[in-house]
Every structure is written in structure tokens, then in C-alpha cells.
């Protein structure tokens, strides 16, 4: 590069030219900018600082607005920064603040320049350096420049001192030991008569206190004085934020500040300050009734305001207060519910959050109804948010809130039919989960599943596939509760199922297999048990479910017509027409059951139907479908051998009763009857590690890393060997039949269970399901807002125990009384811990050393005899100092994790990590004991500081 030609300097485009150029360009913005960049790259290499700085100025204009990389110009930034001319220096500083970060390689080169400018007599130079430091300070910079910053904290120039205070936050964050040097001066600035310095200092303390409030409790008197004396709303807001953090830690402090805060709330005309007062009261001082009442009054004013901002904030304040004082939300329920249809989505979300906060088992039915109606009217996004929150609220803690599962299952069905519903996966999981956990819900579940399956229209909506998948699974698994298995088969095989994705179709086919097995089994059982067809367990279940008020629905079905559909080829010729009649004569109570038609003819129809529908699937390319289709057809093939043709006389079949097929069917049915139950999340822990298997020790570390990832219980299945096997076994014995295969299979299963029974549910648990009855509470489908309000008015009223017509069915829970997977507590980052440690140290020293001089000046504590304070503190001193010493020793270990709050750590630590900890080095152990010792010490050491202010 040759020296700067005079032409270059003369004809350099200024920033203004560049901006004008961008606005007038005809070649396209990006092309223009890349051209400009070429220019800049050339100009910036110039040895003339003026040319260079203008090039840099243009670059730092383009970089943030047009996302142009400028990291390559780092060195040029430094050159400009060291220019003696302020304008050029400023351009350099702006560029540095904009583009430098911890990874900038030339960062170390600026330390000296910064030091020089920080010490400059020109306040603007110092100001530039401070601004820059606030943006880019790294650990090294913060450490090296702490003395300069400390000097400036006492600067006589207000603008410099103010900026020095602003920079402190970043310095402390990067280099906690700076606290030892600077903290005292920082605190002194709280006493400054200059409002600008005070405001900067309060701002810094607000940020510091929000990270670790406890360390700043000793400064409460200073903050209190600001709260009472200051007239500046900005400062007051910050101080209120500090007190919001401190008050929960020290009840005497809360008592002291509650009055001034209420005063501000009453007096102020500024909405921002008033809102801050409200927020402070509802979040931290809500146990003071008069303050809370005043805050609630003000919240109401906000809610009633036309301004959407204030309304939003009102709702926000309600959501803060909701967990502790639900009545406040209930008082304002009209506004909240009306806000659900606000035009502003933020307000809608906030009010939905509030509504979800008041949901309880006594009003969940009404609220869900209201929300579902809003969901129907809302845009797809909000609709799904509503559905999502209903789903998660109802399933919380294993359906804790749901008393009536029939209602809930119907609700899930209703949700599925909402056109915008995209919650397929959640609903799928819940349907299956409820099926496994709540036995009493199964009849309703299968009825709902049936209604979803037989609707061909639903197969056109891809969002529903997951739900249909669950419905198909439910139909196969709990077919014994079905009123009409044939209909189910028909629904599962309807032509439009070809629209389904292959894996879901495979579930459909599997369900067909289960239903088929069930039908054949019931038919054979029916035949073999002769005169007592209904003593059998399985059919007993069916008949039982029939008698539960479903007879009507079943008999409504035009069964003969259905049969026609099943197989038109045979329907006109029906030699076994008398069979149902015969049974009818036997017992009219089971009329409808016979209409279900486990007749020979209907079975044959069923076989034909399945064969017809499944055969084409043998050409499927999807393995899952192919395999399952093969299974179904193979089974049918076997059965066909026993039903050679439909005209064979009945006797023959009776004779062949105990043939291979019936054995096979029986054992298959037994296998399908095993109940699937939820599996405990801790089941894996209870499996003993086989000998010789060495688990990687290192993996234990994963516990700390993945502690917060909790596997969902609902996604695990395992067969649960409930009483059903034993019952069927017993009934087999009772019947005195030769049931070799089934016994064989069940005995195998029982043995398996014995071996692995550890982590299966005890079979007795499932024996005492109470019977659900079908009393249905009247549904409300008014849909005007006013009605909702009235409706919820009843339901939101805090009644203790709802009067339900039936007891809540048993919900299988697994992890009760066990240690749930501990979620790793969120620990504040070590940086802040270090910081708080130093601050506590410093405050302690400050209190000892200059207490007399400083406190003497203060009005608040002036009436307190100094001696008493000294007395209270003296006994603590040696220990404090020791702990401080140890702490500093520890810090030399670098960035080790350090836990501030031993209670928290000890309480939440789970066994594994403790073990891991014990194994780890001795140093760790020492650290822990130190923490233990320090924990109570902190409290006892700090509390004495405040009382003299509070008394």
C-alpha cells in the first residue's frame, strides 16, 4: 500500500455521502453496500488517521444496520481510538464498543489506552472510556482497570462519576474481587445529594440485588431513606424493586416499608410508579391486608381502564397475586373472562393464564366448557393454546383434578372434533393413559373411540391421525367393553383408512386382530359352555357393561342391516336364524348381547369381511402393515379349517369344540387380555444390575446434567398381570374343561411375573375398582359471555367439597410415596455466588470499621445507641473473619462451583449426586462442611445489622 494520495483523501466519501448513496442507489442495496465495503477496505488501510477514521465510521454505520461483519477491522479501531483528536477517538471507541467481544484477539492491546483515557483530565475522554468499558469489559480488563474505576467513583465531575457507577456492574460481574476495592465508595454514592449519582447508584444496586438479595440486607437503611426522601420516580421504582427482593427475607423490614409504599401508591400520579407499588405489594407484601386491599383497588382501576397497556398490566398483577390470594382473581372474574375474547392476543393469553390459575376440581367442568366455547370461536393459534392448557391442567398430577372420567373422555372427544385442533399427540397420550390407569373410564372410552372411528369424515384431517390411532388401540385393547365388536371391525377396515399413514394403519390392523380374537373366543365360549353361557368371566364382563345402561344404545343399532353390509354374499341365506331366538328364550335380559350376534353366521360374515378388506394389503410395501395383515389372514386361515363352510351342521362344530383352533384362540385371547398398565418412572432403578455387567462410572455425571429431563410416565407400556389372568384361570378350572394351552400360557406368565414382579403393580390393587354409574350431569351449552360469567360465578365460588353423584374412580398411580426424580435445582451461576460472597465480606468489614462514622450521620439510626450494635456483633466477628479468609482461599481455585445456599443444596440433592460428591476429591468435602458452617452464620451475622434500624 502506497502512502495516502491526496486524491484519496480529497475524494473520500463521507458517511453522509454513503447514506445518501444508499437511499439513491439504482444497482440494488446489497450490490451498493458491497461496493462501499470495497472502498472502505481500501481507505481504512490509509496511514492518514482522518481517512482511516471516516472509513471506520462508515463501517460502523453499515455493520449494525446492514449486518456487515467488522471484526476484521479490530486493529484499525484501536488505531483510531488512540488518536489525539476527540472526533477520531470517538469514532474509534464507538467501533470498539460495537464490535469487540471476549474473543477479539487484539483486546489486550486496548488496556493501556483505556487506562490512559480513564485517567485523562478531559471528562469526555474519560466518559468515552467508561462507556466502552461498560460494553466490552472482560475479566482481564476489569481486573486491570479496577483502580482507575475506583478513582473515578470519587470524581468531582458528576458526569464521570455517574458513568463510573454505571460501569461498576459490569466490573463486578467479571471480576468479583473488585468489590473489595470499590464497594464502600459505591455505597457512599447512595448518600450523594446529586440526584443523577443517586439514580445511577440505585440502578446498580437494583441489578445487584435482583441476583442475590440476601447480601444487600445490611444496606436496607440506606434504601429506606431513598424510599422516603426521593422525589424522583425513576429512583423510586428502582428502590421499590430492591425492596420487593429484600422484604421476603426479613419480616421486620417488610413491616417497616409497607406504609411508605402505600403512601406512594395513594399519592403518586405516575402510573409507572403506582404499578411498581402494586407489583411490590402483590409479590412481596401480600400478607399485609390493608396494603393488599389498596393494591387490589388499584388493580381494579387498571383493569377498568380503556388503555390496553394498563389492562394488560392489571391482568399481569392479578397473575402475580393469584397463587397466594385467589380471591382477588375471583373478585375480578368478569373482566378476566371477558378478556378472553379481547382483540389483543397478549391480553387473551394473560387472561387464559389467570383462568387456568383458578381451575380446581370443583369448577373444572364449567371452566372447560367455557374455554371450549371460546376455543371454537378463536383463531387457530389461540384455540390450540386453550386446548393445550385444558389438557395440561386436567392431566396434572395424574388427573388429580378430574372427578368424572366419563365427562373427561367425552371432553377429549369433543376437542378432537374441533376443526382447528392440533393437539393430536397430547390427546392420543391421554386417551391411552386413561385407558391404562382408570378402569371405570373404559366403557366410555371405547364408546368415544367408536364414535371417532366410524366417522369417515375425520379420516380426512391429518391432525387427527394420532387421536384415531389411540382410538383404534383403545378399541382393540378394551374390546370386551364394546357393545358391538362387529361394527368396530367395520370401522377399522373402512376404505378411507387408506388415507392413514402406514404406522397408524398398522395399529388399526392390530386392533382388528384383537377384536377378531375376542369375537371368535366369545363365540366358542358361548358354544362350549352350553346351557350356562354367561357364567364365563369374559362374557360376564360384557353383560355387566351392558347392564350399565348401555342396552338402549346397543339395541338401537340396526344389527341385521349391519350384517348385510358385512357380507352381502351370504346374507340372503340364513340357516341359523333360530339361534338367537333360542337364546332369547333363555334369558331376555341378554337380548342385546345376542343382537351383538356371536352367532355362527355373524362370525362367518366377520371372517369374510376381514378377509376381503385385508387381502389387498398383502401388496403393501410397509413392513408393519404387511406383517400384521399376514397375521390376521393366517389366523383366519386357521379358523376357516374349523368352519369349512357355513352350511356344516352345528353338531360337527360342537364335536370339534376342543380342537386346535379353539385352544389357539383361547390362548391368544388370554394373551390379549393381559392388562397393560402404566410403568413407574423409577421401575428401572429397581432392576438389579446383572453380575458381570460393569456400568460406566462416568455416566453418573449424567445425573447432574440431565436431572431436569424427566421421562414422561405415560409413554411407557408394560403388560400388567392383573387379576384377569387369575380369574380366567379360575374360571377355566371351574368349568372343568381341558384348558391346557391357556393354563400353560398363564402359568408361564405368572412365572414371569414372579420373576419380575418387583416392578409390576401388585395384582390386588386392581381388584377394588368401584363400579362407575352412568349418571350424567346436565350439560350447559349456553354460549353468551354473560352466561359464562354467571355460570362461573357459581363454580368459582370457593366451595370446599363438590357434591358428586359418584365416587371418583380409582386412578392407578405408581410413584406415590416414592422419591420422585429430583429435578436439579437451578443454581445461580457461580459468578454471582463469588460476587455475593465478596459483597458479604465487604459489608461485614464496612460495618465494623466505619460504622460509627457513617451511621452517625444518618437520621434513621441516629437514635440507636452505638454500643448496643457493637455488642450484638462482637461475638460473631472472629467467625466471620475466618469464613472470609477461607472463602478467599477457596476462590483461588478458580471457577469451581460454589453453592451459596447450603439448605437448598442439601435439601434437593438426590442420592446419586451425593454419592458422586463423596467420591470426588477431599477438597469438595471440605468445601461442603464450610458451606454448612457458613449457612446459619450468614443469617445470624446479618440479622443483627438490621434490627437497630427497625427498632
Amino acid at each position, binding site marked *: 500500500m502506497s502512502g495516502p494520495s491526496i486524491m484519496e483523501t480529497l475524494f473520500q466519501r463521507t458517511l453522509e455521502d454513503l447514506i445518501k448513496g444508499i437511499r439513491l442507489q439504482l444497482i440494488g442495496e446489497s450490490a451498493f453496500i458491497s461496493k462501499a465495503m470495497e472502498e472502505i477496505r481500501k481507505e481504512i488501510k490509509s496511514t492518514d488517521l482522518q481517512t482511516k477514521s471516516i472509513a471506520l465510521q462508515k463501517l460502523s454505520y453499515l*455493520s449494525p*444496520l446492514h449486518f456487515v461483519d467488522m471484526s476484521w477491522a479490530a486493529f484499525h479501531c484501536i488505531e483510531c481510538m488512540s488518536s489525539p483528536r476527540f472526533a477520531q477517538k470517538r469514532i474509534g471507541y464507538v467501533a470498539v464498543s460495537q464490535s469487540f467481544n471476549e474473543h477479539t484477539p487484539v483486546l489486550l492491546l486496548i488496556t493501556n489506552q483505556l487506562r490512559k483515557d480513564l485517567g485523562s483530565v478531559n471528562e469526555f475522554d474519560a466518559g468515552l472510556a467508561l462507556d466502552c468499558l461498560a460494553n466490552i469489559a472482560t475479566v482481564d480488563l476489569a481486573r486491570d482497570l479496577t483502580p482507575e474505576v475506583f478513582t473515578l467513583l470519587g470524581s468531582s465531575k458528576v458526569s464521570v462519576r455517574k458513568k463510573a457507577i454505571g460501569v461498576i456492574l459490569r466490573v463486578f460481574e467479571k471480576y468479583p474481587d473488585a468489590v473489595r476495592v470499590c464497594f464502600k465508595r459505591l455505597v457512599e454514592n447512595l448518600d450523594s445529594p446529586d440526584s*443523577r449519582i443517586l*439514580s445511577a447508584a440505585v*440502578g446498580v444496586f*437494583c441489578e445487584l440485588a435482583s441476583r442475590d438479595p440476601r447480601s444487600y440486607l445490611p444496606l436496607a437503611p440506606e434504601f429506606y431513606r431513598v424510599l422516603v426522601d426521593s422525589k424522583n420516580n425513576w429512583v423510586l421504582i428502582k428502590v421499590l424493586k430492591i425492596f420487593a427482593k429484600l422484604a421476603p427475607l426479613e419480616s421486620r423490614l417488610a413491616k417497616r416499608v409497607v406504609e411508605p409504599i402505600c403512601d406512594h401508591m395513594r399519592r403518586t400520579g405516575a402510573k*409507572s410508579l403506582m404499578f411498581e407499588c402494586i407489583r411490590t405489594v402483590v409479590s412481596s407484601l401480600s400478607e399485609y391486608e390493608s396494603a393488599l386491599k389498596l393494591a387490589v383497588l388499584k388493580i381494579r382501576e387498571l383493569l377498568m381502564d380503556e388503555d390496553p397497556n394498563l389492562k394488560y*398490566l392489571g391482568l399481569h398483577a392479578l397473575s402475580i397475586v393469584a397463587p397466594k390470594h385467589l380471591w382477588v382473581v375471583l373478585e375480578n372474574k368478569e373482566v378476566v373472562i371477558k378478556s378472553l375474547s379481547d382483540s389483543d392476543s397478549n391480553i387473551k393469553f394473560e387472561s387464559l393464564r389467570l383462568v387456568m390459575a383458578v381451575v380446581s376440581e370443583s369448577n373444572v367442568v364449567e371452566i372447560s366448557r367455557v374455554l371450549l366455547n371460546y376455543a371454537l370461536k378463536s383463531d387457530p393459534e389461540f384455540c390450540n393454546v386453550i386446548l393445550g392448557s385444558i389438557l395440561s391442567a386436567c392431566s396434572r398430577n395424574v388427573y388429580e383434578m378430574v372427578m368424572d372420567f366419563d365427562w373427561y373422555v367425552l371432553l377429549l372427544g369433543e376437542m378432537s372434533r374441533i376443526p382447528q385442533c392440533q393437539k393430536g399427540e397430547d390427546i392420543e397420550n391421554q386417551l391411552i393413559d386413561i385407558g391404562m390407569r382408570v378402569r371405570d373410564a373404559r366403557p366410555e372410552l371405547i364408546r368415544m373411540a367408536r364414535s371417532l372411528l366410524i366417522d369417515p369424515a375425520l379420516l380426512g384431517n391429518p391432525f387427527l391421525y394420532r387421536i384415531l390411532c389411540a382410538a383404534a388401540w383403545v378399541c382393540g385393547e378394551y374390546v370386551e367393553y364394546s357393545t358391538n365388536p362387529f361394527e368396530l371391525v367395520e370401522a377399522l377396515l373402512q376404505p378411507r383408512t387408506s388415507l392413514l399413514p402406514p404406522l397408524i394403519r398398522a395399529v388399526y390392523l392390530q386392533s382388528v386382530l384383537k377384536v377378531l380374537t375376542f369375537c371368535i373366543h366369545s363365540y366358542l365360549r358361548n358354544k362350549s359352555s352350553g346351557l350356562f353361557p354367561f357364567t364365563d368371566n369374559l362374557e360376564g364382563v360384557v353383560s355387566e357393561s351392558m347392564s350399565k345402561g348401555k342396552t338402549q344404545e346397543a339395541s338401537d343399532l340396526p344389527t341385521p342391516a349391519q350384517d348385510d353390509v358385512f357380507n352381502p354374499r351370504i346374507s340372503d341365506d340364513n340357516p341359523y336364524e333360530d339361534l338367537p331366538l333360542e337364546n332369547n328364550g333363555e334369558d331376555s335380559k341378554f337380548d342385546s348381547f345376542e343382537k351383538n350376534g356371536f352367532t355362527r353366521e355373524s362370525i362367518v360374515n366377520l371372517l369374510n369381511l376381514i378377509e376381503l378388506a385385508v387381502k389387498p394389503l398383502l401388496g403393501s410395501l410397509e413392513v408393519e402393515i404387511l406383517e400384521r395383515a399376514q397375521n390376521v389372514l393366517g389366523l383366519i386361515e386357521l379358523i376357516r379349517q374349523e368352519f369349512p363352510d357355513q352350511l356344516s351342521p352345528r353338531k360337527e362344530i360342537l364335536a370339534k369344540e376342543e380342537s386346535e383352533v379353539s385352544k389357539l384362540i383361547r390362548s391368544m385371547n388370554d394373551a390379549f387380555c393381559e392388562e397393560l398398565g402404566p410403568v413407574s418412572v423409577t421401575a428401572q432403578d429397581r432392576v438389579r444390575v446383572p453380575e458381570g455387567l460393569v456400568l460406566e462410572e462416568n455416566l453418573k455425571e449424567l445425573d447432574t446434567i440431565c436431572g431436569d429431563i424427566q421421562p414422561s410416565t405415560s409413554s411407557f407400556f408394560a403388560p400388567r398381570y392383573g387379576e384377569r389372568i387369575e380369574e380366567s384361570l379360575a374360571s377355566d378350572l371351574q368349568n372343568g374343561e381341558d384348558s391346557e394351552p391357556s393354563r400353560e400360557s398363564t402359568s408361564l406368565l405368572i412365572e414371569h411375573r414372579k420373576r419380575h414382579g418387583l416392578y409390576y403393580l401388585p395384582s390386588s390393587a386392581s381388584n377394588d375398582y368401584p363400579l362407575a354409574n352412568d349418571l350424567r350431569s346436565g350439560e350447559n351449552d349456553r354460549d353468551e359471555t354473560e352466561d359464562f360469567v354467571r355460570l362461573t360465578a357459581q363454580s368459582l365460588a370457593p366451595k370446599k367439597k363438590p357434591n358428586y353423584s359418584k365416587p371418583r374412580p380409582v386412578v392407578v398411580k405408581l410413584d406415590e410415596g416414592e422419591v420422585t426424580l429430583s429435578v436439579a435445582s437451578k443454581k445461580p451461576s457461580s459468578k454471582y455466588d463469588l460476587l455475593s460472597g465478596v459483597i458479604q465480606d465487604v459489608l461485614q468489614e464496612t460495618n465494623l470499621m466505619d460504622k460509627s462514622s457513617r451511621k452517625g450521620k444518618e437520621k434513621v439510626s441516629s437514635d440507636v445507641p452505638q454500643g448496643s450494635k457493637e455488642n450484638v456483633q462482637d461475638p460473631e466477628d472472629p467467625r466471620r473473619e475466618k469464613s472470609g479468609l477461607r472463602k478467599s482461599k477457596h476462590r483461588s481455585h478458580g471457577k469451581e462451583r460454589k453453592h451459596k445456599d447450603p439448605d437448598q443444596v442439601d435439601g434437593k440433592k438426590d442420592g446419586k449426586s451425593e454419592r458422586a460428591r463423596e467420591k470426588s476429591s477431599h477438597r469438595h468435602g471440605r468445601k461442603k462442611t464450610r458451606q454448612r458452617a457458613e449457612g446459619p452464620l450468614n443469617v445470624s451475622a446479618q440479622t443483627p445489622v438490621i434490627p437497630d434500624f427497625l427498632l
Partner: protein
Amino acid sequence: MGIRFILMVNKQGQTRLAQYYEYLTLEERRALEGEIVRKCLARTEQQCSFVEHRNYKIVYRRYASLFFLVGVDNDENELAILEFIHLLVETMDRHFGNVCELDIMFHLEKAHFMLEEMVMNGCIVETSKSNILMPIQLMDKTS
């Protein structure tokens, strides 16, 4: 942290000023600004001025063709930030006289200078208009 970033964006979604108080790479900035602009510019006058975004809040206000967007921590006082935006606009107005988008475009460094005086490290440190403008006026005089 308090304030995380301050953006000025015009109606067409072009960024006119961007000031960040935490380091983000260019790509992160581009993505962030895109998301925010899409979210906020679609809102109507009747809707409230606070938008929740990722794990923080955006407080915004529109003046003529220019949107002022401030990203703040969740527990920051939203109304105070609105007042802060207004103070910023008033300050610029006092300096430029009937401030408009073009003023900010052509005097971006001055706008940055004002922000530097008002905010440090995400904390508001100066709220007096004359104090904010003092150094700029001095600079204008000397140059």
C-alpha cells in the same frame, strides 16, 4: 441487566438504529430483529405495547413512521420503559427540532451519543434532557 437492546425500526421493517447491551453475533442479531419486527409491526394501535418474546419482554411505541423497540428483562417496569422511550424522543426532538426518521439516519452517531448518556450497561443513568444534550452541544460548538 434491565435493558437488553434498543432498536429503531421504520414501517418497512428497516432497522435505523440498533444498540445492544449484551454481545450477540451478527447472525443472532439479524434473526432477533427479524422476529421482533415481524411480531411488533403486525400489531394495531389498539393493542397493548408489550410483547413477550423468548424469555424477555419488548416494550415498543410508535412515533409517526418509526417504531422504538426496547427489549427488557421480565421484571422491568413496562410503563417506565414507555416513559423512557418518550424521554428519548423528546430529547431528540429538542436537539433536532421536529425530529424525523431522516434526522436519525443522518445523525446516527448523535442518537447513539444520547443513548450512551442515558443508558449504561442496561441501566438508565440519566433522565434530564439538558444533561443528556450537554456533551453533544459542546461537541457541536467545538467542531
